[in-house]
């Protein structure tokens, strides 16, 4: 019996059709979903093609409306494939992990909430906003929710929509191909797409369901290199692949097919090919069947990963390997013989590997298929400790000052945070850093520095960064939008565009501090920081790819936007496996209306007969910091334990789309003399 989560179904809405059956039929016939764009005027651009969802080519409704519709179609499709009706859903613990980045200033947690509500998903709905790796990472976190016992069923995937502004930004960066993209092939550049896809992942033995594949493992990494270009030798991609293989308990020789990110750009394809050869060796690298399905579906951005996994699953089930549509001969620095017939080629394989990479250097790889792991003792869960913490907001530049805010119960009079990051990091190029990146980098640096951690050598690969953030930095968003208003869509501010992601701060921080380990940006609205801590803790406990993860959160004051943050704030906690005086002893994650369940989960995992001595809430004087305030609570809890005020503490947050509870306990033995 394998403990790998089972994939029991999937659903899609893509350029090759709405519904997985349409997608399957189109893939098997070698159809290409790239066509001239009808939805908006592309006459002033140098390229005019895209991969719009079939039937929505001219649909110009609001992007969030389209995202919801695509997501809804794909979710229903997936549930039908898994034969899960609303009754069954109601009796199980069901979660949603949604890859969605949208525009950086759009409300992705609302999208998650509305999809969850529509599908009667009562469990946590977690949004992952890391651009092109969003849905791949969402699938990975979905596996974690199952493996960790936080959910029985997870609908994991992503959605995205191709908007004029997105098209304009990529166009300005010069990465779009003139005609339909030919990954690894003659024409250079990518073609943008859109769509939605979801996998149904569930725990075995729950119900009578057909296991269509096993989700064996995943790996994350960060390039820590550049805002838009991948590290040229594919160092980060290779790290993510190795981490996924390791998580799956599989050697690279067991992979029967590789679905590459393969966007078609020189930068991506070259780096990725270097990575593949570095992991598989030159010989195996050249012979392993590999392809990129972006020739069929375009680059569906936040939905790319899941649609590519689904494409592979559809073909795998039919004994085929997906083909690289449009490929007509290799280019120098690329694989010589990707799978490239007009239609998928017959291939029997047990295990597949799928990789994706994103702006800012996030990389994610998944291993899935029909080979079960040989029975073995599961890796024991490692204890996780809190090392140092750093907090920043108006009126508090460290945790002691934060404690004063808690004690005084009144809002600080000083509304401004003043930091001189250049003075703290004299040898880091901070030109052009936006506000969110600056705040996040400051707290992360301070927390690592206080822990005496200089990230050199292997420590860079074994240190991760998990960030709770709702939006891109408003200054970057503002600059981008102004540039379009003032200069038109053909002349956007390319630098601002590159920073338009909710994950831009995470990437900038990772680059500044050389953090190359597992990293991501997640969003549950209110409480995101606490979830980042929970994810960090469960990753350190269950996985072996990092020794410490900085769990952080950042909010930037957004003037005049409903639901925007009211003040700048950032917080970082260094979690690790090296023992300290404060241990993370219990974690609970549940739906937004089930805080009690999250608390009960945490209490159960702790295994103590008594409740925690201290309950720390968000600092009431600090309003309007949705991502960070729950992190502040946790940092304050750590501080309280270290001050000897209690021997255990809980922070619980009823977030916008998920409830989270974390229990901490002092590890110091009290000398009763």
């Amino acid at each position, binding site marked *: 019996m394998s403990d790998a989560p089972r994939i029991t179904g999937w659903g899609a809405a893509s350029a090759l059709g709405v519904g997985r059956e349409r997608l399957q039929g189109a893939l098997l016939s070698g159809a290409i979903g790239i066509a001239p764009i009808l939805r908006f005027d592309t006459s002033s651009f140098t390229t005019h093609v895209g991969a719009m969802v079939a039937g929505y080519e001219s649909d110009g409704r609001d992007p969030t409306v389209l995202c919801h519709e695509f997501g809804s179609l794909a979710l229903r499709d997936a549930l039908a494939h898994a034969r899960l009706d609303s009754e069954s859903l109601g009796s199980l613990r069901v979660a949603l992990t949604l890859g969605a980045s949208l525009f950086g200033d759009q409300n992705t947690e609302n999208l998650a909430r509305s999809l969850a509500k529509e599908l009667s998903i009562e469990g946590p709905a977690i949004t992952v906003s890391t651009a092109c790796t969003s849905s791949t990472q969402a699938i990975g976190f979905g596996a974690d929710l199952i493996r960790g016992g936080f959910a029985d069923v997870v609908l994991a995937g992503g959605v995205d929509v191709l908007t004029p502004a997105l098209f304009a930004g990529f166009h*300005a*960066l*010069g990465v779009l191909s003139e005609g339909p993209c030919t990954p690894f092939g003659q024409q250079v550049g990518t073609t943008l797409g859109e769509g939605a896809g979801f996998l149904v992942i569930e725990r075995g033995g729950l119900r009578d369901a057909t296991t269509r594949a096993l989700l064996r493992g995943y790996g994350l990494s960060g390039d820590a290199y*550049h*805002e*838009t*270009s991948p590290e040229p030798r594919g160092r980060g991609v290779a790290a993510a692949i190795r981490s996924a293989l390791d998580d799956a308990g599989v050697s690279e020789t067991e992979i029967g097919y590789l679905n590459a990110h393969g966007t078609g750009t020189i930068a991506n394809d070259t780096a990725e090919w270097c990575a593949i050869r570095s992991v598989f060796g030159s010989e195996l690298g050249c012979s392993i069947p590999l392809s990129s399905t972006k020739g069929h579906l375009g680059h569906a951005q936040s939905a790319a990963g899941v649609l590519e996994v689904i494409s592979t699953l559809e073909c795998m089930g039919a004994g085929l390997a997906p083909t690289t549509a449009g490929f007509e001969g290799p280019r120098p620095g690329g694989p010589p013989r990707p799978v490239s017939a007009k239609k998928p080629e017959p291939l029997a394989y047990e295990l597949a590997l799928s990789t994706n990479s994103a702006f800012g250097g996030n990389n994610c790889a998944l291993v899935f298929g029909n080979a079960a792991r040989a029975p073995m003792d599961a890796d024991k869960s490692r204890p996780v400790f809190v090392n140092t913490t750093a907090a920043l907001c108006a009126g508090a530049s460290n945790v002691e000052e934060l404690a004063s805010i808690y004690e005084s119960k009144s809002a600080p009079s000083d509304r401004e945070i003043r930091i001189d990051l250049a003075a703290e990091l004299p040898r880091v190029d901070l*030109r*052009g850093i936006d506000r969110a990146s600056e705040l996040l980098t400051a707290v992360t640096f301070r927390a690592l520095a206080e822990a005496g951690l200089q990230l050199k050598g292997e420590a860079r690969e074994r240190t991760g960064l998990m960030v709770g953030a709702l939006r891109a930095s408003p200054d970057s968003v503002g600059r981008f939008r102004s540039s379009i208003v003032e*200069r038109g869509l053909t*002349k956007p*501010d*390319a*630098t601002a565009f*590159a920073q338009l992601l909710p994950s831009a701060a995470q990437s900038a921080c990772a680059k500044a501090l050389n953090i190359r380990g597992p990293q991501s940006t997640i969003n549950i609205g209110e409480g995101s920081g606490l979830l980042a801590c929970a994810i960090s803790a469960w990753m350190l406990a269950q996985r072996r790819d990092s020794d410490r993860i900085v769990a952080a959160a950042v909010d930037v004051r957004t003037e005049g936007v409903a639901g925007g943050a009211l003040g700048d704030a950032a917080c970082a906690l260094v979690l690790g496996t090296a023992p300290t005086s404060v241990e993370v002893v219990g974690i609970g994650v549940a739906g937004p209306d089930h805080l009690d369940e999250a608390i009960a989960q945490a209490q159960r995992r702790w295994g103590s007969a008594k409740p925690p001595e201290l309950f720390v809430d968000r600092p009431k004087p600090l309003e309007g910091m949705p991502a960070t305030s729950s992190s502040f609570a946790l940092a304050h809890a750590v501080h309280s334990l270290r001050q000897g005020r209690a021997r255990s503490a809980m922070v619980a947050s009823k977030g916008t789309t998920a409830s989270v509870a974390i229990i901490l306990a002092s590890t110091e033995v009290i000398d009763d003399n």
Partner: protein
Amino acid sequence: MTTDLSDYVASREAILDHVRRILRDTMKLKIEPQAIDPDAPLFGTGLGMDSVDAVELVIQLDTVFGLQLSGSPEAFLKIRSVNTIVDAIMEMTDES
């Protein structure tokens, strides 16, 4: 200085100053425009501009001076340094 020479120098210095400001603002440098050497390389080394910075620079030069640059190597030559940009602008103005 002859009048011709002083006129030439004056035009050049005006454009030089303007281009330096554009570069300073594009790169978000916290320096005075005069701190940008006229012959300093803009890409690779020197100011260390990358391909993303280049996008903005090209837009600015078009918007402010009407200088239109294609993606060809010959066009890239015109933006290797501040002086080469000024040369291109003055040449364009001479032609018109």
